[in-house]
């Protein structure tokens, strides 16, 4: 990989380590990014020829003609774009190593088979957070492509009430969770096998779950939820984030009403037909995580799937972010391309970048200017070789928590082992 000249003004900032809060277990650096096109994702959203100062893990200044701190490592941007580190969508990063190997998959509480209606036993208390493994090889693979965080999804494809997950930084630390728990619920065709073969039962069961959660007495015989499940649902009743994976316009309308009745902050994920109810979504303040590559009727809930879904939603005033077509973590890195496709189909470019940065950070309530490049924001930054949404652009430098991460993954090591055209010894001896 081509590297741009980096000038080290002074020796590395080892001493700074001890000034950091204990939670930030990484070694922050003092960095000065010179002459960048900065996607601040604030006001104004893009600043040309700007400098960024990174101190103690945070952005300390953004502006023109800034001075590099004495001990700063200088990164020459040469007017190329710097964005906040990107959101990778709702994924099983750190929860799945190989999708096809059940022993490496933790994101779903899988019922043994579609259960009969009286034995559904949804488990909203199922929380994937303790299963998160930052040592998964998929995390560096994703991180070096410019992705800084993801929302751990629970149960997509395997759950009606799939359980809970949290936003997590991809910095490789064991405990880098960024948000409160988020509850995942799947509505529509993809989960109807789990709810007695009818989506109508999904609304019935959700009402039942809410009713049980309000009953503080002892569990009734035949109750839908366990005591912990009742507590979990009750916790979300006050402004908890509930991600509804759903595509059909009629379902999205039902979800908006359901969420309003129960005090949930609904987020639509997928939303293939969300464009049909864009005005209602905008009015209700319900954001949508779109999969911009979906333009086929993958099932009968997605008959109206179209490429300008994101553009129509934005035009109507809906907050748009993105998520991929599946929870498998391996191609999370494709989300940038998907955002580019949304932009190629009418979404303004800055809104496309926002959908990967500031919009999801705001949707899920990440603190401290996360998803922006503004003073005080955590220094999660990416220097790109060109337009951050273009498929031929690569992430050149990735900074997480104020630290340049090594641009190494299992895939770069495999590449470097096989890149030499000839090898006079078995390649197993090559340790890149």
């Amino acid at each position: 990989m081509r590297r741009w000249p980096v000038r080290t003004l002074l020796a590395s900032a080892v001493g700074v380590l001890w000034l950091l809060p204990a939670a930030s277990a990484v070694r922050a650096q003092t960095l000065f990014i010179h002459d960048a096109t900065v996607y601040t994702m604030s006001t104004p959203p893009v600043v040309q020829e700007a400098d960024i100062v990174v101190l103690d893990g945070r952005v300390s200044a953004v502006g023109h003609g800034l001075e590099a701190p004495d001990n700063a490592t200088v990164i020459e941007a040469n007017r190329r774009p710097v964005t906040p580190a990107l959101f990778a969508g709702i994924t099983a990063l750190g929860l799945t190593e190989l999708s096809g190997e059940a022993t490496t998959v933790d994101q779903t509480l899988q019922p043994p088979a579609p259960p009969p209606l009286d034995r559904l036993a949804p488990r909203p208390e199922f929380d994937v957070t303790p299963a998160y493994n930052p040592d998964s090889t998929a995390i560096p693979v994703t991180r070096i492509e410019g992705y800084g965080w993801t929302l751990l999804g629970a149960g997509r494809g395997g759950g009606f009430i799939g359980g809970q997950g949290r936003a997590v930084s991809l910095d490789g630390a064991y405990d880098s969770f960024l948000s409160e728990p988020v509850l995942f619920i799947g509505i529509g065709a993809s989960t109807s096998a789990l709810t007695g073969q009818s989506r109508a039962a999904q609304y019935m069961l959700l009402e039942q779950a809410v009713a049980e959660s309000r009953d503080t007495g002892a569990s009734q015989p035949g109750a839908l939820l366990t005591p912990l499940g009742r507590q979990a649902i009750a916790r979300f009743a006050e402004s908890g984030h509930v991600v509804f994976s759903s595509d059909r316009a009629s379902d999205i309308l039902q979800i908006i009403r359901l969420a309003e009745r129960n005090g949930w902050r609904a987020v639509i994920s997928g939303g293939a037909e969300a464009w049909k109810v864009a005005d209602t979504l905008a009015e209700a303040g319900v954001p949508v995580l779109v999969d911009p590559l979906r333009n086929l009727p993958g099932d009968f809930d997605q008959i109206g799937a179209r490429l300008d879904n994101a553009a129509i939603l934005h035009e109507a005033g809906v907050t748009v972010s993105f998520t991929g077509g599946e929870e498998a973590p391996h191609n999370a890195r494709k989300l940038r391309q998907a955002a580019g496709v949304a932009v190629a189909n009418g979404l303004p470019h800055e809104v496309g970048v926002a959908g990967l940065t500031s919009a999801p950070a705001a949707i899920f309530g990440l603190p401290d200017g996360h998803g922006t490049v503004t003073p005080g924001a955590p220094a999660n930054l990416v220097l790109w070789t060109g337009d951050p949404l273009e498929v031929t652009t690569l992430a050149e430098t990735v900074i997480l928590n104020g630290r340049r991460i090594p641009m190494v993954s299992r895939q770069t090591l495999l590449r470097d082992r096989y890149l030499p055209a000839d090898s006079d010894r078995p390649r197993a001896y090559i340790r890149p």
Partner: protein
Amino acid sequence: MACVRFIVLLTALVCSTLLRAEAPYPSTYQPLPSQSLLITNATVLTGTGDRLDQASVLLADGRIQAVSSRAIRAPGDANRLDAEGRWVTPGLIDVHSHLGVYASPGIAAHSDGNEATSPTTAHVWAEHGIWPQDPGFNRARAGGVTTLQVLPGSANLIGGRGVTLKNVPAVSYQAMKFPGAPHGLKMACGENPKRVYGQRNQEPSTRMGNVAGFRARWIEAQKYLDDWARYEQRVADGETGLDAPARDLRLETLAGVLRGEILVHNHCYRADEMMTMLDVAAEFGYSISAFHHGVEAYKIADELAAAGVCGALWADWWGFKAEAYDGIPENIALVDRPEGSCAIVHSDSSEGIQRLNQEAAKAMARGRAAGMNIPPEQAIRWLTANAARSLGILDRTGTLEPGKMADVVIWNGNPFSVYAKADQVFIDGALIFDRADLERQPLSDFELGQSLGDRP
């Protein structure tokens, strides 16, 4: 005689009685009406490895007539299109699609791609499962795909015959069938067959069982071929009253491979398994046209090039199962690197087939970042000429050379971009898609009358 066109082996058995009859389920494809067209001022990627700037392309009588960076004299009645700022490429070719056999919507009734009832189903033909109303064909066309091979799935060691289609809207697959294109044979090594049958406590349940299964079938196929050859010889020697050997649809397909009339498309991920399959092919005297998926193909790029086997690959898929663990985004570029190589970008996806150009762009960018010089005129071959080569149709399409089918895409700019769009798509010179003209945007019967808004 259709089979004459398939001759690749110089043997006396090339056209046996078996195939002497007109090939069944013949193509009824007819090019749509076309007009002569002179495209000028375009950036042209010819598919032969050349790039011509400010160039002209003349399409007439359904064929490429001329491609030149100098002025071309066009017939007086030819339409003229000033393609200033736009790029022209051969029509894109996807060698690995399940459009029609796993049609959208992906309901149970549309699951027609895997006859997963026996590890060898060489007797089934993908074309008999194709639903031509799959909206995916239209979406792929809007992405510049003019030709595609529809394959059976990979549940079986030998899944059946694949078919090569012209991507035209039609009510029958016969009307899409690429005239004279050889059938493909889908084979699969690795995890899928051993998982599908192992779960049923059936052979194969291991990779050992996979290979034993392949070898047993080829032995049967050789015998079948020999039985027919002996019979043919005796008929030729004037013997009468002979009973012909019984026809067997499974062995007929496999014999077609041994005769070189059917091209092997082998789903295979791991480098070691691809090497094993090359040895299976050598043992029984057939060729592998392409390894499909091959996420470890970069480990044996030289061996693949030396064997003349194409690698039909994804830009970046990996990790969805153990045999896909070692996938790297430089795979295509590394497979492309040796002399005589044949790297192909394939989709295996109703989404990916719409954006083969973007997949290629990602692979190109990765190759460049790793120090390989891959200009657009080289990368376009992954989607056009190399794909045509693996399907046995390079003499008819896949490049912009005079005499070839006028399968052409005019892009709104450099196709290796997320913002690139196919403005116009031509098949045999006929304008079959025009982004600016609703009248040239076919809609499947399935989508007619659905609640789609104001769009195509």
